[in-house]
Structures are given as structure tokens and as C-alpha cells.
């Protein structure tokens, strides 16, 4: 079943892929820091196959630190465990942190330049000015 959610916000899954490397003078721009003003925790449908497939694409360390920095790492282990495909309990924890902890308002911060990217109504604004490209 699907749970109704009033608005869609930035999930930590999306944070995990975002970078500021397109900025002039920035080489890696990853991971972006998070300043979270409003956080929403929702409940969404668990899809173990999808979570298993996403884990190898993630930067695990960045995910854990992001969740921890906003106080939502829960009991997610700091190290990715082996044989996670068959560990439903673990996959559910990953699902929760990746897809159920959402940022409504706040900022993403470039780790190199300190440039702030506002998150407003759940949408990160990654637009750059012409002189930043």
C-alpha cells in the first residue's frame, strides 16, 4: 500500500548523489554538508530489491555522516555490512534513512567553497550564477 504524503521533499538518497563540482574552482564538491531547518520523517513502501540495488551506488560514508549530522542515523551501522542482500532488517534501516528522512527547508553546503545551496519547500536549488561556472 502507498501512504499519502502532502508534499515531496529532499530525501537523503538525492543528497547522496548531489555535488557542487560544476562550480568554478571546485574539484570534488562532495559530499555536501546539510543544514536542516525542517525535517520530516514519513513512512513509505519498503522495496527490498530496490534498496539492495541502490546500496552499491551509494557513498556509504557520506550517507551515514549526512544522517548523523541531522540526528537521524538511528541504529544504521557506520560500516556497510556484508551479505546485506539477504538481511531484511538491515535493508529496512537503509530504506528508512534513504527514503523516509526528508529535508523540507535548509541548506546544502559546498565542502570546498562554502557556497550555500538553499533547500526550500523540499527542493534543493543547485542553480549557479554565470560567474560561478
Amino acid at each position: 500500500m502507498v501512504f499519502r504524503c502532502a508534499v515531496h521533499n529532499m530525501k537523503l538518497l538525492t543528497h547522496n548523489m548531489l555535488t557542487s563540482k560544476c562550480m568554478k574552482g571546485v574539484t570534488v564538491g562532495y559530499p555536501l554538508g546539510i543544514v536542516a531547518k525542517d525535517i520530516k520523517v514519513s513512512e513509505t513502501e519498503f522495496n527490498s530489491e530496490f534498496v539492495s540495488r541502490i546500496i552499491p551506488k551509494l557513498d556509504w560514508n557520506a550517507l551515514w555522516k549526512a544522517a548523523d549530522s541531522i540526528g537521524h542515523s538511528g541504529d544504521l551501522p557506520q560500516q556497510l555490512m556484508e551479505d546485506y542482500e539477504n538481511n531484511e532488517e538491515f535493508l529496512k534501516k537503509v530504506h528508512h534513512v534513504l527514503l523516509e528522512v526528508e529535508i523540507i527547508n535548509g541548506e546544502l553546503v559546498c565542502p570546498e567553497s562554502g557556497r550555500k545551496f538553499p533547500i526550500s519547500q523540499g527542493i534543493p536549488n543547485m542553480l549557479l550564477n554565470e560567474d560561478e561556472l
Partner: protein
Amino acid sequence: MALFKPKALECQLQNVKGFEKPKVKLEQYVTSPHIAAHMLHTIQSTFDDLEGKFVADLGCGCGVLTIGAALLGAAQCVAFDIDPDALEMFTLNVNEFDICNIDTVLCDVRFIPVSWKKTFDTVIMNPPFGTKHQQGIDLQFLHVALNLAGKSVYSLHKTSTRKYVMQKAESWGAKPKVLAELRYDLPATYKFHRKHSVDIDVDLIRFNLE
């Protein structure tokens, strides 16, 4: 999950509202519910590239393709667009449906702020055709899409540029195939269109990356 028939999907997508004030510079025009429904239905029924998949929509506008992909069972969608007004309408539209597996990012697709490679299973898009003041932007979108997708990219391109688009895609390591030829009814959205509407021929192309 039972697959929506094209007509039923089209019906649903008619609830997606379009641009309030389309911007000429960004070549904003709505992908019609009819075209969106047929495109998405083909992607799922023939190639199984939506249900359970991680899907990106580049230049998502008001969201008709993203919402359609979510209705056909995409596991998660991320939609990218440069226009805050479009994303505001996108959000209003998403809220009309029972969907929570969509994220949106405000950014220039040409400088997509994504660090992962081959992040998504499937990329869908109706890019700007590059007909006005931004020649070549359709191929810039395509290049970005091919880097982001692990399995396939589905995109609409002007039939008149087919040969060039196919050549470019092959040089970037993709295997393109035209799935359908469509007549795209560009409504006279902009003041400078003298006729009521302008028909252009458009290809739906699948770019295979496997």
C-alpha cells in the same frame, strides 16, 4: 502491479496542469497526456524499464512524464529542471496524486550536479528541441542522460535531425532505435507563432546502454 492501459494512463495524466506562463527562452511546452501515455506505456510494456526502476526526468517541466512513470510503478524518480516556476507547478501536480517517491532538483541540466555515474536505471525526457536560440541543447541533454543512465534513455527528437542524433549517440556508446514517429502538435503557445498550431515530426528514440 497491473499496467495502466494507455487510455487510462492518458486520462490520469490529463489532471497534470501545464505551464502558467511558458518561457520562450526555455522552449517550454507541455508533453501532451496522449504522447506521454503512449511513450510511457511502450517503455514499460515492451522494455520493462519503469516498474521497480530508478528513473530520472531531465527538463521535467510540470511533471507529466515523471508522474506517469511513478504511476507505472517506478521505484523512485528524480526530476531536474532549471525553472523554479515549473517546479512549483510540478509540486502542485504531484500533490494531486498519491505519490511520494519523487524528488525534484532545481538545476541546469547541462551542468547536472550529480556525482554518481550510471546512477539511474532509466532516463526519460522531452528535451528542448534546440530550435530557437539554443541550438544543440537537445544533444547536450542527451549526452548528460547517457552518462546518468545505466540501462536506457528514452527521448523525443525532431525527425529532421534523426541521422545526426543517431550518429552522436553511437559515438557516445549507445545503441539508438527509433520506436515511433509522432506528430507533435505544438500549440501556438507563443505570440510569435502565426498559425494556431504548428505540427512537427518527432521521433521517440530508445538509446540502449547495455
